[in-house]
């Protein structure tokens, strides 16, 4: 991972990330093929919404892209200057048993940000995501929506060039969903590439720049949002957009 430069953090925008290339990538577990083979490229700023019915392999694809898993076949590569700064937000936020602000400071410390700037960066991020009042509260007593925003604030503070989100709002109520989506837009405005999975087609319509559609472990379509929602090409995508249940 490229190191964080303190001066870089002073500026709001992030360097545009290199393209991510999947070539013939497949993932098997215990002789069962779960994903692929698939080939596609993620470039541009997105937001790329990875969609498909449950069990299609969306979470798997995300983890492969972020580097949490290695493909059993094929190659995943970043173009240009190599692996960019990334962050990931999970469906269930993973927070430490400490205060909200301490969670952020921990993330900064782990990434070797100098001690003297940690507090300010953390508090600024909390403010951006509307969590200033919760700064000193134990992170684990916050509501589901607040916790997820805290996870996003933690990602923010690391100035990621790419942000992966795995169904970040599926456990939240509408007000919280709205707040999280607003936060995602903040990242987008900063120049971070968004790659997000969702099974909520309406959420996709609200956020997507382009859509990567999976079903049965294979990539069926990768098209700009408007094209996908209005004129889906593959039969699986057509069924999905029409609201039918897919296997």
């Amino acid at each position: 991972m490229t190191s964080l430069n303190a001066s870089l953090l002073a500026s709001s925008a992030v360097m545009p990330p290199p393209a991510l290339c999947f070539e013939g990538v497949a993932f098997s577990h215990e002789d069962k093929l779960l994903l692929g083979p698939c080939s596609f490229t993620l470039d541009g700023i997105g937001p790329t919404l990875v969609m498909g019915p449950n069990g299609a392999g969306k979470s798997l694809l995300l983890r492969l892209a972020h580097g949490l898993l290695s493909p059993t076949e094929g190659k995943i590569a970043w173009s240009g200057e190599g692996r960019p700064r990334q962050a990931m937000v999970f469906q269930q936020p993973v927070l430490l048993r400490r205060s909200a602000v301490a969670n952020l400071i921990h993330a900064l410390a782990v990434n070797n940000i100098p001690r003297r700037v940690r507090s300010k960066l953390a508090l600024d991020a909390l403010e951006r995501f509307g969590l200033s009042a919760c700064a000193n509260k134990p992170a684990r007593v916050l509501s589901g929506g607040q916790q997820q925003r805290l996870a996003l604030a933690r990602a923010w503070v690391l100035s990621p060039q790419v942000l992966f989100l795995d169904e970040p709002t599926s456990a939240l109520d509408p007000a919280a969903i709205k707040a999280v989506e607003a936060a995602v837009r903040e990242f987008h405005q900063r120049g971070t590439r968004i790659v997000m999975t969702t099974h909520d087609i309406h959420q996709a319509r609200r956020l997507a720049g382009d859509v990567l559609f999976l079903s049965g472990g294979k990539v069926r379509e990768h098209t700009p949002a408007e094209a996908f929602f209005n004129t889906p090409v593959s039969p699986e995508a057509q069924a999905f957009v029409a609201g039918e249940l897919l296997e």
Partner: protein
Amino acid sequence: MENNAFYVALSLLVNLDASLFQIVVLSLQVSLLAVLIAAVLGFPLGAAVALWRFPGRGGVIVVLNALMGLPPVVAGLMVYLLLSRAGPLGELGFLFTPGAMVIAQVVLVLPILAALSRQKVEEMLGEYREQFVSLGMSRGRMMPTLLWDARFALLTVLLAGFGRASAEVGAVMMVGGNIDGVTRVMTTAIVLETGKGNLPLALGLGIVLLTLVMLINAGAYWVGERTRRRAG
């Protein structure tokens, strides 16, 4: 006799018997120091076994778990053979000193702290691992974070270790020699008085020991509860 024993225990405490006080202080010193050393060694060991895969890992876990049941007198015997003049570390002259007793109790407590912390850390890794890798943490870097996050569970583990140390007699008897004024602790004093047939006094000492351990546990619980509320 039971009534007698309570009365004896009470009068011991009320009169603040000087030799009893000395025995109590030594008991606490030995067991607390042993638990501290065992924690400094054992918690990182447990976390390391949880974090890294290596050949024979399963065997290490089984051995650690099994050693939780190491009989104190066996531990005492092993440490005695090590520290005896005829043994490899005889030159140190540690035998029949409180230092030897601490060493023997570390041998007893270390497996408990290591095995239970491994269990806890491994459990937590299931929840934390992906996020930690995402944040860019190396496994070494994960260790202190996991141990600190597990601190409430680990406090209970520490109390289990302390309970084991303060309750045992076989090891400290063997390597300490139960020398009056030098290596006599609560448990060895109880054995001595029982051997003399002074059962009320022995039981009274036992009650004092239990009261002490109870107070320590209560204190730990109080500290734990107060900070748990602050940390969520």
